[in-house]
């Protein structure tokens, strides 16, 4: 770090890029060259440190403190060691919420990936006009803000005048007249899942489609000549080639779905019943509704740790990328 101008010798890429002229340049200029990346990085590093690194540290600290509304005024928490964590692990409610969050994540990620892949495969086989139409439709959905999406799904499943109940009844799926989808958390979560999967499909489908169009056609043709059906081609050629994309999309989906908050919060009008709590909601309610900031922070820490475990493969890949390039 503090090598100054002398460090330049250690960086063949830079020396080569600067050309032989660099050798004759005065000392001050070379020092400037070596230090300039740090100058360029400094503002971003400063901001990220202030608004990200410090809060992360602060989150860890808070989770070890008794920090309620009184402490918010005095600006000083009381150290209580691991009490918040032991309270979590003895909290019956907490384990229900964790289990619910895992199931919820698995269902949402699974549906998103399967439907997204199917739509991507469909895109490759459509005619050009229909492909453009469907892609445009996907982008429209992709662009819909979450708050707007929740609002319009609420309207569609409205128990009295919603188009959804009417359609289901008309298609003879049963009597859905005046059905309240949120009376039972199971159907309530079905609506929430629909909102999330609907919103997440476009990114997955378009990205996989972009990947599919890179698969060399000769490979697929050769396999087909050898008698491979569609499923074999997908399983033995397309999927292995696109594996990195699938890993990344799945990991991103896990990250996004594990911390879902807005959809649940908004569709229950800012007062979700306990049956609707996911980990992020639980942490939020403890902190901002009950004023238990320390306890809420501890839940958030556990949530982050569980998420990192769930996306371990992805993390490993990222760290490798950081090292090699």
């Amino acid at each position, binding site marked *: 770090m503090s090598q100054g101008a002398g460090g330049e010798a250690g960086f063949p890429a830079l020396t080569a890029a600067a050309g032989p002229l660099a050798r004759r340049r005065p000392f001050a200029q070379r020092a400037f060259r070596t230090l300039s990346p740090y100058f*360029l990085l400094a503002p971003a590093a400063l901001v990220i440190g202030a*608004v990200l690194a410090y809060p992360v540290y602060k989150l860890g600290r808070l989770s070890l403190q008794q920090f309620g509304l009184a402490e918010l005024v005095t600006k000083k928490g009381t150290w209580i060691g691991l009490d918040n964590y032991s309270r979590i692990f003895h909290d019956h409610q907490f384990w229900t919420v964790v289990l619910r969050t895992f199931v919820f994540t698995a269902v949402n990620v699974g549906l998103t990936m399967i439907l997204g892949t199917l739509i991507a495969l469909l895109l490759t086989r459509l005619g050009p006009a229909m492909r453009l139409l469907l892609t445009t439709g996907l982008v429209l959905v992709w662009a819909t803000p979450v708050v*707007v999406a929740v609002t319009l799904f609420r309207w569609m499943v409205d128990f009295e005048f919603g188009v959804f109940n009417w359609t289901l009844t008309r298609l003879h799926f049963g009597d859905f007249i005046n059905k309240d989808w949120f009376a039972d958390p199971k159907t309530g979560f079905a609506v929430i899942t629909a909102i999330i999967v609907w919103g997440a499909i476009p990114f997955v489908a378009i*990205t996989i489609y972009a990947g599919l169009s890179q698969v060399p056609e000769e490979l697929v043709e050769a396999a087909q000549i050898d008698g491979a059906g569609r499923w074999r081609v997908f399983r033995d050629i397309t999927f292995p080639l696109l594996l990195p994309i699938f890993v990344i999309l799945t990991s991103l989906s896990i990250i996004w779905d594990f911390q879902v908050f807005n959809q649940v919060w908004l569709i229950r009008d800012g007062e979700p019943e306990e049956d609707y709590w996911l980990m992020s909601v639980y942490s939020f309610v403890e902190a901002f509704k009950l004023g238990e900031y320390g306890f809420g922070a501890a839940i958030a820490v556990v949530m982050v740790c569980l998420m990192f475990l769930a996306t371990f493969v992805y993390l490993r890949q990222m760290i490798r990328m950081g090292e090699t390039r």
Partner: protein
Amino acid sequence: MNRKLAGRIGINLLGLFVFVVMVFPVYWMVATAFKEGHNVLADTPQFFPNPATLSNFDEAIHRQYFWDVVKNSLIIVATVVTFSLVVGFLAALALAKFRFHGRAVFIVLILGVQMVPLNALIIPLYIQLSNIGLTNELRGVIITYLTFVLPFTVWTLRGFLLGIPRELEEAAMVDGSTRFGAFVRILLPLVAPGLVATSIFAFVVAWNEYLIAYVFLNDAEKQTLTVWLAGFTTQRGTEWGPLMAAATLTALPVLVFFLLIHRKIAFGLTAGAVRG
């Protein structure tokens, strides 16, 4: 031959079906926004607004605080985009064009911080801002938005910069241009589309954000468009017509921008990963 044709028609019909299912919610929002009140609340849904009316939009924009929250959203978004673009571009330049000690560490940091959920950080951020008296201030929200906009900006711009061949710059320098001259005349024009795409994406993310604004801004006239929209219901039941008009207005800028740039963003998000 005939079977092949039938198959192609079948596939395209399936495509049409998927299109209709995916787009229907958005269509339903817009259709409802143009309906007259009694047609919104009809026992048999009206699938096409007839007669069409603009009264819902009229009611939405004349609702209390509408122009306040639009102004707030614009101020927040403009500041966040400008700031993160300038700062992020400098950092991306360092990461893409220089080799130096600590580069790999910084890249891992940039990627890692994007994984920390905002939901987890909102508690310490709230306490920090309340300590320095920045809750209920647009400034506080602006600072907080940088947490997720800036790392993304750095990463995406770095991807765009890496896509520019080094030889181009070198050629300019051989021709007697200084490094700065090469930067202005060669690099900047080439990276301009990337800058536009990144700034639009930053715009969209900041425009759509709900949770931070909801927690940090208490006064109704200080809130953002999304928070205002979410609070639309409360008074006397839900007025679906005006609500759908307001939702359409909220989504409109984002829809337009997204249609313009979606290709670049799909590239930016996955480029690094695929090539790695």
